[in-house]
């Protein structure tokens, strides 16, 4: 121990003696370790962190996909991850292996709840509510921060209406007012009691940038759930719940999975969908997959997992390049300290002792780098979070390094110190003491040379891989962003709101919509205004199977799906749909007029591929009996609404308030518009507050859930791609810089070491050009070998990112050529400076140093 302290003291003294080296090394390490720690903060929070619950290991999720939010029909791969309430009850009752199995609303989207406290003068707020079963908090094993949490007894018919508020909402919106607990709030026009506050660390059952503000018992779903103001609670054909349970210790999960799959099939067999002959294969294949539930519902993990894993790989490569740089610096230092090492050896020091001393120095250095890296990590994480979640309100990820992140940074520092320290320590400790003591520097080669050059070659190869990756990502992002979505975004505004949360009944909607549109039209600067169920590129999608009149019934495997939404009269003009044939939706398309639809070009291509005239054709979505429900009266141009990487989906547009003739009871949820779109004449000052005021004047409960420009909404679709592309580019440039510095360092060292040789050469007639060429040849040789290794390696590595690319081949010759060019230029520049210096060698002085 004493010896270790002595070694550390000596290491610190040595580092203090060479401030230039120490600062360079610490900055390089800080960048490398900081970048890794920042990415790790995100990886830990998103991919590795468990819910802050009592026993996460016992939590099991029934399901493994991010299916959302209300789904019907047969799921992809017949894999059930989202369930109807009755199906949940069926599974719960047939699986005693669960101590308790809870259900929670899958989609906590724009349509939340409107909440008003009982404080005089308090205005209603748009908040997010999640419907959960009464045993939800018991399954998670949570204790309230204040008051109490929801109990099963709160989730029965006739129980007093009570909800739980999240700690974050309590802090953010109600200033941590203790009197909130037990008080009566008005939620969606219903008086409810605030039962308690969740513990501060709890952010819901899943990682999300907008966690729920209220937890609402399932029994209140008809008033607060996603089906509000109708209900999904007892709809057997609508799947809208995630299941998370606490298993009894010792339960065999494989057996339980098989048992639950069988139980699922028993239930599904009672549904009309699965009673059809052509659905028997689907029924036989229906199953559930049980997954660990400690981290909750891992939708964000699925969304960000691949990107984050890629980023951590990229940042690890950057660190590796940084390590190679420091190793090179250490080698140079080691060479310079050969005499000291030799004296120690001559005085009886063992090699192991010398290696330990040098390793101590490396580790002390890397720990100092790690400490500085924490500062970089803190700032880096803030930037990362802003890039990844630009609109997050209560993101449960802290930029301040947690204990885990601190541990990670420390472990990384130790590892880094060992990686970059071990080779120099070994090489230096194996110098010949007699040579070193003689001060023999005649030799033009030394044992560290090959190692230094290998490290530079490694850096060049890794940098090329990163440059190619960054080039591909940037090109993919550019193609994604610059593709023609079909939309017009200039001077467009999207306002999300929730008339159902404001308590409107179906029969009141026509009047409300007319009033909203009229009042918004009256605002100065507003040109057009339209309501719609949702808007392009906001992440929402409603879809059903289409049944066309005069065609045979589609089979179970038929691809007859199409997306749809309801829109108001000026909607097409606002978003950029051009009417190509027939007409658009007009003010005359009311609840009582002939039910019509307008379809997009993709719809015509999909369902009228033989050149039939779509105008006048009829179709429906509730089986063959519904084929006469709607008449196609127009065709509009395509616009991408959802998956930007795939072709535009077949879509149809319905008037706001027309209800399908067939199964009309299932068609009323969509009558509640979720968005208002506006076109303005140029920039309008204070438009947001004017819109908020206009809605509040109509009804104070008409709160704005979200206000955004259409342009920002579209741009927001690329947040993740942009973050990955920017970070990859940033990391690759950092890597390039480190590699260039590495090459510069090795070349400069080589020039310094070869000064006498250069002097001899010049004395024998070598000109400046000869010397520059000699130095550059050596520098470029390393870069070329790096390229020779890097090109095939990059060729292989791009396979790993292929899935992240859009319309860019993994083997893009332009990106590869560009990357090779950039690296070559960097190498030329890095080599040129020492080459110039070599050419300026004064042969007289050089020969004198001999």
């Amino acid at each position, binding site marked *: 121990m004493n010896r270790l302290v002595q070694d550390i003291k000596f290491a610190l003294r040595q580092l203090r003696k060479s401030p230039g080296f120490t600062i360079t090394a610490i900055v390089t390490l800080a960048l490398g370790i900081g970048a890794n720690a920042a990415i790790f903060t995100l990886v830990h929070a998103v991919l590795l962190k468990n819910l802050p619950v009592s026993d996460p290991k016992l939590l099991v999720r029934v399901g493994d996909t991010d299916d959302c939010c209300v789904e019907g029909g047969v799921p992809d791969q017949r894999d059930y991850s989202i369930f109807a309430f009755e199906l949940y009850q069926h599974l719960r009752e047939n699986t005693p292996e669960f101590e308790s199995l809870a259900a929670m609303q899958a989609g906590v989207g724009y349509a939340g709840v409107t909440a008003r406290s009982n404080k005089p003068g308090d205005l209603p707020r748009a908040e997010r509510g999640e419907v959960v079963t009464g045993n939800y908090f018991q399954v998670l094993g949570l204790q309230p921060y204040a008051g109490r949490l929801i109990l099963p007894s709160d989730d029965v018919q006739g129980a007093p209406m009570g909800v739980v508020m999240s700690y974050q909402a309590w802090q953010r919106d109600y200033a941590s007012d203790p009197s909130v607990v037990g008080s009566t709030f008005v939620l969606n026009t219903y008086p409810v009691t605030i039962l308690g506050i969740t513990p501060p660390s709890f952010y819901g059952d899943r990682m999300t940038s907008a966690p729920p503000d209220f937890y609402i018992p399932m029994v209140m779903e008809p008033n607060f759930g996603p089906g509000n103001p109708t209900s999904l609670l007892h709809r057997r054909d609508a799947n809208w719940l995630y299941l998370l349970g606490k298993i009894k210790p010792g339960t065999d999960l494989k057996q339980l999975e098989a048992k639950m799959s069988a139980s699922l099939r028993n239930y599904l067999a009672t549904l009309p969908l699965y009673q059809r002959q052509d659905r028997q294969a689907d029924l036989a294949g229906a199953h559930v997959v049980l997954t660990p539930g400690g981290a909750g519902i891992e939708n964000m993990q699925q969304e960000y997992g691949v990107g984050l894993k890629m980023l951590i790989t990229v940042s690890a490569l950057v660190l590796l390049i940084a390590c190679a740089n420091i190793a090179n610096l250490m080698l140079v230092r080691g060479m310079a300290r050969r005499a000291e090492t030799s004296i120690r050896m001559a005085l009886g020091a063992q090699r192991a002792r010398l290696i330990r001393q040098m390793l101590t120095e490396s580790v002390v250095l890397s720990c100092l780098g790690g400490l500085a890296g924490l500062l970089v990590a803190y700032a880096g994480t803030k930037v990362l979070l802003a890039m990844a979640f630009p609109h997050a309100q209560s993101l449960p990820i802290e930029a301040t390094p947690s204990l885990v992140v601190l541990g990670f940074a420390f472990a990384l520092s130790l590892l880094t110190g060992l990686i970059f320290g071990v080779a120099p320590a070994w090489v230096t400790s194996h110098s010949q003491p007699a040579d070193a003591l003689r001060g023999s520097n*005649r*030799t*033009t*080669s030394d044992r560290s040379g090959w190692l230094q050059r290998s490290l530079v070659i490694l850096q060049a190869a890794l940098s090329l891989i990163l440059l190619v990756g960054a080039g591909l990502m940037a090109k993919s992002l550019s193609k994604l962003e610059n593709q023609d979505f079909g939309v017009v975004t200039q001077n467009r505004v999207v306002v999300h709101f929730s008339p159902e949360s404001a308590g409107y009944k179906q029969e009141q909607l026509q009047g409300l919509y007319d009033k909203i549109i009229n009042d918004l039209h009256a605002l100065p600067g507003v040109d057009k205004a339209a309501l719609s169920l949702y808007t392009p590129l906001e992440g929402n999608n409603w879809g059903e199977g289409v049944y066309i009149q005069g065609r045979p019934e589609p089979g179970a495997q038929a691809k007859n799906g199409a997306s749809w939404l309801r829109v108001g009269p000026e909607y097409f003009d606002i978003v950029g749909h051009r009417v190509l044939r027939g007409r658009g939706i007009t003010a005359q398309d009311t609840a009582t007029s002939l039910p019509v639809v307008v379809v997009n070009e993709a719809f015509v291509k999909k369902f009228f591929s033989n050149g039939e005239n779509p105008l006048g054709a009829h179709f429906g979505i509730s089986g063959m009996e519904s084929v006469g429900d709607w008449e196609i009266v127009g065709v509009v141009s395509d616009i991408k609404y959802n998956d930007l990487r795939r072709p535009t989906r077949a879509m149809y547009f319905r008037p706001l308030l027309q209800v399908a003739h067939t199964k009309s009871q299932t068609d009323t949820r969509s009558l509640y518009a979720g968005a208002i779109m506006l076109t303005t004449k140029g920039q309008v000052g204070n438009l947001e507050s004017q819109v908020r005021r206009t809605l509040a004047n109509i009804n104070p409960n008409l709160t704005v859930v979200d206000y955004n420009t259409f342009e920002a909404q579209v741009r927001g679709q690329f947040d993740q791609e942009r973050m990955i592309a920017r970070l990859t580019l940033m990391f690759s440039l950092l890597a390039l810089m480190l590699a260039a510095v590495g090459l510069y360092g090795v070349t400069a060292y080589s020039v310094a070491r070869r000064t*006498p*040789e250069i002097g*001899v*050469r*010049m*004395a*024998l*007639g*070598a*000109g*400046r050009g*000869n010397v520059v060429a000699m130095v550059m040849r050596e520098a470029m040789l390393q870069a070329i070998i790096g390229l020779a290794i890097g090109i095939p390696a990059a060729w292989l590595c791009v396979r790993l990112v292929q899935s992240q690319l859009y319309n860019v081949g993994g083997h893009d010759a332009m990106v590869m050529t560009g990357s090779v060019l950039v690296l070559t230029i960097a190498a030329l520049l890095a080599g040129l400076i020492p080459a110039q210096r070599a050419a300026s060698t004064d*042969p*007289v002085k050089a*020969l004198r140093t*001999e």
Partner: protein
Amino acid sequence: MIDLRNVERSYRAGGTETWVLRRISLTIQPWEFVTIMGPSGAGKSSLLNVLAMLDDQWKGEFDFDGVAVHRLNRKQRADLARQKIGMVFQSYHLLDDMTVAENIDLPLSYKDIPRSERQAMVADTLDRFQIVAKKDLYPHQLSGGQQQLVGIARAMIHKPALLLADEPTGNLHSKQAQEIMEMFRQLNQEGTTIVQVTHSETNAAYGTRIIELRDGWVHSDTAGTAQPPLQEVRS
């Protein structure tokens, strides 16, 4: 061949200017074998560097084979030196990662000479200096005398008119030193002008003329052209 007029060289260290060559004026004819002697710090090596055109910080006038060196720029001086001068060093300055043949070829590699011609010249030189058997060896595999022999061969390969040698036998024992000096004498008799710097009276005896330097001044010159030093207070 060489005509120096009032050549001076000084080094500035801190605020002090130290003179290493003072008003050197001397003429060296072709075929001469000149020995420069003097105590340490007398300016011998500095004078040699001026003659080798490795140093271009001196003042005065220097004519070489009728060319006014003092009017040439650095590149022109280097070109002239490349053509006319060969250098032999006390510590040989062979490049350790090159073979004997490659070391000898080095000066030719800086000239526009076709490879085949260079190979022939190297072969001739190896033969002339009787080191053919050593051509593939590396310097560390040779004795000191052998290394200096290679150094001389390297200096002579391009048939320079002037051979400059700075303490060529300083690292050799007497037998080896004698062999090297015999070699110099032979080269001189074959027409090469030689200027050597040495401390050794024995080596000096091989030459035809001795110039003695003291404190940067020409103290004596057996050719009788030396000027007596002026009394001067040096800063």
